[in-house]
């Protein structure tokens, strides 16, 4: 592309590098808390206990790695699909700086125990305002650029990015409404059963609109780009998009099965959760058939395996999730380690896989060079795959064990196991999970090294061409 120089690649690169930085921090804290579970001496009160570190881990990876990559890669995609530079490049640069300041402050505040106790919305109110500003800046730039686009048709990825911005705005603002009491403390405006319903409407759709729609935007853009094969069915992508965006919002209460929440809300949520298999698999089928249309060609590109395995894990995730929502399954595995096993198949298998592959595509493009080493990329791929499988499978096994032991009774009907006995039986699995995490982390280090060397290679080429 001749007008490449117009594109604000530096901001894109800045977001990608920042997201990798926060990603490493979040993963290392994840390893730390995984050890704390089987070695309580690794808790260092007051700042580094499990209760405080777990939220640093989840927020660091959701907002640092996830949202950072989403901002950067969405800017990249939007500029190219609109065939025009960002409307406000300086604002985008400010967005990058503000993002890093906000994530740093967020981490410090969570270490300090400033915590609203709402899952994935733990940040206290001053930081909530910061997060809203970040999304407003993003929305202004995205919409502005799309409106001024030079390409008449909006491609699938743009639909998903638009839906992401709209949904996040509604979800984040509503769930964080609170009455402040000083700068560091606030109380939710919602109470009791109602606050549970609002929180899980938010919590589940944070998964939907941070870990699903923007990642699908990347998938729909980079799979055809890296393989050179157009997307299999435009019609299927239209049906998948609207039914996904419609159905997601009904499903939050599947997190509250058997709680005092009114039964009809739970049942409605379970029904829509099962329905969600259809639009999710719409994208899975579209991905498979796209690569399958010319498999030798798709196979020739090293990124295809990242995308196809990523969408496969997305497919497995979106069958496992609705299964868990069913009452008969929920009563066994809810509140157990099965659920972290499920979550990490999505985050390590689908999200990180797809984001990493997108970064592999973007960084050489904007550095005007090729990837430093396909061999290292392949090593990265297999290590994160093995690490994630060990993590998820051990947690599924121990989750079933926890559920089953807590229900086990003696012949006279009394409970067979005390809670502490059930905890003790998890230790070998928790240790194996740490091993899986270490393997995954090593895989990510290969990835980072590869990206670092590619950027260096690009700089060296730029100097020699000058």
């Amino acid at each position, binding site marked *: 592309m001749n007008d490449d120089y117009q594109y604000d690649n530096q901001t894109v690169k800045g977001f990608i590098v920042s997201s990798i930085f926060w990603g490493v921090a979040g993963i290392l804290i994840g390893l730390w808390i995984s050890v704390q579970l089987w070695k*309580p001496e690794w808790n260092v009160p007051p700042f580094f206990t499990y*209760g*405080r570190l777990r939220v640093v881990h989840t927020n660091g990876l959701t907002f640092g790695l996830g949202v950072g990559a989403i901002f950067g890669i969405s800017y990249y995609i939007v500029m190219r699909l609109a065939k025009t530079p960002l409307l406000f490049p300086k604002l985008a640069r400010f967005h990058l700086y503000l993002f890093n300041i906000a994530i740093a402050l967020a981490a410090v505040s969570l270490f300090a125990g400033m915590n609203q106790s709402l899952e994935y919305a733990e940040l206290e109110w001053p930081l909530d305002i910061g997060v809203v500003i970040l999304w407003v800046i993003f929305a202004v730039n995205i919409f502005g650029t799309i409106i001024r686009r030079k390409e008449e*048709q909006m491609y699938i990825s743009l639909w998903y990015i638009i839906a992401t911005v709209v949904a996040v705005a509604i979800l984040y603002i509503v769930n964080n409404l609170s009455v402040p009491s000083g700068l560091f403390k*606030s109380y*939710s405006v919602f109470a009791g059963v109602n606050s*549970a319903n609002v929180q899980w409407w938010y919590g589940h759709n944070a998964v939907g609109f941070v870990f699903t729609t923007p990642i699908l935007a990347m998938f729909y853009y980079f799979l055809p780009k890296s393989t050179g094969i157009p997307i299999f069915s435009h019609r299927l992508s239209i049906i998948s998009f609207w039914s996904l965006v419609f159905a997601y*919002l009904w499903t939050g209460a599947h997190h509250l099965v058997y709680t*005092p929440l009114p039964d009809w809300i739970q049942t409605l949520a379970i029904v829509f959760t099962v329905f969600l298999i259809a639009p999710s698999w719409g994208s899975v089928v579209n991905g498979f058939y796209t690569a399958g249309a010319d498999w030798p060609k798709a196979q020739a590109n090293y990124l295809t395996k990242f995308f196809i395995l990523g969408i496969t894990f997305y497919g497995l995730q979106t069958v496992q999730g609705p299964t868990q929502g069913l009452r008969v399954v929920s009563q066994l595995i809810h509140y157990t380690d099965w659920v972290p096993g499920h979550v990490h198949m999505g985050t390590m298998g689908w999200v990180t896989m797809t984001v990493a592959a997108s970064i592999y595509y973007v960084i050489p493009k904007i550095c005007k060079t090729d990837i430093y080493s396909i061999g290292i990329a392949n090593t990265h791929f297999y290590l994160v795959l093995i690490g994630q499988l060990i993590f998820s499978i051990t947690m599924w096994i121990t989750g079933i064990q926890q559920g089953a032991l807590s229900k086990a009774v003696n012949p006279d009907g009394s409970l067979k196991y005390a809670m502490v006995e059930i*905890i003790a039986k998890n230790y070998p699995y928790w240790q194996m999970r740490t091993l899986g995490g270490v393997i995954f982390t090593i895989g990510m280090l290969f990835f980072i090294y590869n990206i670092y060397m590619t950027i260096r290679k690009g700089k060296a080429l730029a100097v020699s061409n000058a």
Partner: protein
Amino acid sequence: MAGLHEKLHTRPVTFAVLSAVVILIGTIVTMFYPMLTPQMHPKLENLKPYTPLQLAGRDIYQREGCNNCHTQTVRPLKTEVMRYGEYSKAGEFAYDRPFLWGSKRTGPDLARIGGKYPDAWHSMHFEDPRAFFAESNMPSYGFLNKRKLDAGDVVSHMKALGFPYTSDEINALDGKTEMDAIVAYMQVIGIAAAKKPAIAEAARAEDKNPLSGKPEAVAEGKDLYAANCAVCHGSDGEGGIGPDLTDNVWLYKEGDMGDGALHNIIANGTQPGREIEGGKAKGGMPPFGAQMDKNKIWALIAYIRSIHGK
């Protein structure tokens, strides 16, 4: 449909507005609509707002992220009710902003923790969980003992929530530690709901211990004692948080207590006000009936009898 969408593709603002409408349908039906109805705002008649000390404790619970490992909702499932007590009712949470039901039970559920153990049990357990359960993975929270509450903060929090308080309650915070606060919070969780005993069936008062004096029962009882009882009653029954078990005082009264009554206390605990052997229990001992079957409790009694008078 595809035709309509082709047009929609070229109009980003219309597209965004339509997305918002589609997103809002499920949101309105499952979230905004119920919020406007009384079913989402139930309140038990005897539920009270938190006192300043209890609220300070709840704030600490949130600050330390206790909800990452402990749930506060008992599901209406048979074994869960046996393990934790009466299942959670919608009306118990009216003053919880936000709810703290949690999503993961790395440790036990706490919805019925209020009144289950004496205060001293909690503060000692917070300080050193592994002194109670060798295989516990809970962090130690001894530092809460060293931190004093800030009455000014507590007042501003009470005001933000609109909870009533008296100046006596605020003055009483003077010198109180964060440990006092979190223990006070533990003791108020879930007490507004009517309590049912965790286990219905226990021995009758006139029952005799069928394992009395049997050496293998005494040996089994000794192990059970070390695992379950020693933290409160001392490693040799000399007493501690709970009373001495080697003397002849039972439930504040001189004189022996029958095997059946002892069995009943171990199985069902000593909830305050419960009538046992003509006396009123003052509370302190949790029920063990859910985790020890009848014969295990008889073995334990055989052991307790064996250390009597030593």
